[in-house]
């Protein structure tokens, strides 16, 4: 058995508008990328080889699925032209299809299968042709040699197809999977009870309420007073801020939901809120809906600076002994490499030069240095001097334009620091994922919390540095 997956750009053009930046084949339905449903179905049908074809770019899909070894199948990719019909497409893959029963999944369709059922018998006994089709667009086609043409078709559940042709059908199908079909598919996340799937590194505050059914991705923070569910799908790298409600809604990856918001019957993606029913889209260009309006006054800033300085001093004293013992050794061994780099400073300090040290995590001294995060040790003095915060953002290098904070962020939401909040939370340290957690703490931290976060960073960093 082989499976050909044929999806043209026109089939999923709506995804590019509704969720810009997401490759449609990687769009998640109930936190599972679309393409994985098709791969699972192909495997259930006993396919050994799967080929994904498109008239558009497949680079991201290839980077994600690679050669299919993760699923134990052989995955290949190929390109077709927009004008190719199914006959031409089969010709273009004649070597792939030769001497084999081939199932063609054509179009951006959702295949409603059941992981407990066997599909190979039906696929092997059915004659050539379309065996299932979706109402609007898309079908399942069989081609090539039937394996047992004489055997009676084994009883098999019907295969229903549904085209995912709009944000409305996307929303409907996703919630249908969560509410009624979660046992039919292998869905990501742990669940010690049905209808509740929770990913890795999810922090749910005590006073938050979670009502089944829900599916929550990885690296999610759900803050106090929030109400999640019933029927909520929350993607990965998401923060749901205080007292907000998410019901009958989908919050896609890398989205921040501000305080006191009510998301009901919507899809939220980064700064876009869509109503699948009316197709209305709200682009939240207004920063206050995304971030809290509170702005730290000068007094609290001073208080924070003092707290940071005192904490830094405490750490300096605590780590003095390991530093004095290990650092000279490292210097002699030439392992301590320093580089002076200019970084954006906070507030009126435009540029600060910091010597960042890297220590290879090798040998006894290197490992010890890593345990105590000694490469950050000299930076602690800069905290007392007032150049850096103890905890805040990863400093943005002046030379690196891409990570430069914009003017607005620069004034309110950028505090170069020895440790970053992302490091403390064990989140990815660079990119948009880090930005989201750092921005959150920029708004919500207080001096006391900062001390706690610094401790967390000190504990988490050695683990991060340890090679796997």
């Amino acid at each position, binding site marked *: 058995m082989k499976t050909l997956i044929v999806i043209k750009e026109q089939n999923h053009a709506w995804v590019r508008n509704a969720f810009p930046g997401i490759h449609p084949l990687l769009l998640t339905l109930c936190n599972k990328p679309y393409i994985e449903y098709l791969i699972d179905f192909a495997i259930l049908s006993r396919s050994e080889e799967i080929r994904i074809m498109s008239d558009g770019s497949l680079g991201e899909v290839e980077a994600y699925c690679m050669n299919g070894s993760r699923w134990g199948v052989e995955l290949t990719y190929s390109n077709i032209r927009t004008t190719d019909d199914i006959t031409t497409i089969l010709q273009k893959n004649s070597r792939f299809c030769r001497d084999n029963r081939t199932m063609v999944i054509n179009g951006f369709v959702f295949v409603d299968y059941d992981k407990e059922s066997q599909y190979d018998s039906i696929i092997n006994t059915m004659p050539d042709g379309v065996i299932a089709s979706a109402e609007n667009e898309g079908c399942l086609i069989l081609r090539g040699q039937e394996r047992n043409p004489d055997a009676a078709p084994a009883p098999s559940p019907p295969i229903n197809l549904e085209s995912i042709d709009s944000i409305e059908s996307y929303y409907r199908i996703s919630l249908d999977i969560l509410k009624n079909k979660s046992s039919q598919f292998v869905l990501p996340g742990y669940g010690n009870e049905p209808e509740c799937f929770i990913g890795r590194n999810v922090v749910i505050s005590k006073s938050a309420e979670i009502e089944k059914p829900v599916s929550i991705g990885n690296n999610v923070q759900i803050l106090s007073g929030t109400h999640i569910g019933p029927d909520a799908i929350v993607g990965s790298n998401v923060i749901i801020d205080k007292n907000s409600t998410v019901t009958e809604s989908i919050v896609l990856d890398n989205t921040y939901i501000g305080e*006191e*918001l*009510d*998301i*009901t019957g*919507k899809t939220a993606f980064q700064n876009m*809120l869509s*109503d699948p029913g*009316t197709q*209305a*889209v*709200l*682009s939240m*260009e*207004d920063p*206050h*809906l995304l971030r809290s*309006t509170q702005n730290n006054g000068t007094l609290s800033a001073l208080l924070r600076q003092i707290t940071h300085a005192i904490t830094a001093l405490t750490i300096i004293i605590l780590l003095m002994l390991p530093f004095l013992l290990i650092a000279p050794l490292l210097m002699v061994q030439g392992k301590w490499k320093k580089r002076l780099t200019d970084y954006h400073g906070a507030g009126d300090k435009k540029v600060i030069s910091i010597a960042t040290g890297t220590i290879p995590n090798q040998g006894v001294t290197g490992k010890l240095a890593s345990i105590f995060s000694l490469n950050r040790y000299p930076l602690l003095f800069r905290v007392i001097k007032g150049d850096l915060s103890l905890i805040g953002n990863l400093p943005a290098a002046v030379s690196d334009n891409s990570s430069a904070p914009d003017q607005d962020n620069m004034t309110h939401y950028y505090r170069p620091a020895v440790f970053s909040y992302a490091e403390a939370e064990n989140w990815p340290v660079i990119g948009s994922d880090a930005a989201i957690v750092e921005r959150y703490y920029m708004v919500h931290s207080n001096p006391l919390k900062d001390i706690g976060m610094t401790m967390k960073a000190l504990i988490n960093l050695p683990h991060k540095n340890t090679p796997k």
Partner: protein
Amino acid sequence: MTFHIDTSTGSNIGIAVLQGRLDVTNSAALLNAFPEWLQQTTSIIFDCSGLNFLDSSGLGAFVRCLRQTLDQNGDLRLAALASNVAMIFELTKAKQLFSIHPNLQDAIDSFSS
């Protein structure tokens, strides 16, 4: 932003027609104009059919106007919200504060019933 008094139902109803965007740059103008309108009548409708964008400062202005009207025992009602503006009201729970009508006539009639 224009304001006129409608007397078609026998009572004085103030209608403010809002146009374009209401955001941080112009919500102050609405707040400045509002007390004057309130002196003319305490039954006020914001006709939002031409309003295509509202941000939180615009929403804040709406809420302040409503509060001032309620203090005078009047009511501020909204008519003909565009879908994305309506979504802001849903999102921020401000929906519960206002009486929202699908079109201007509906809102006018609601004052006489």
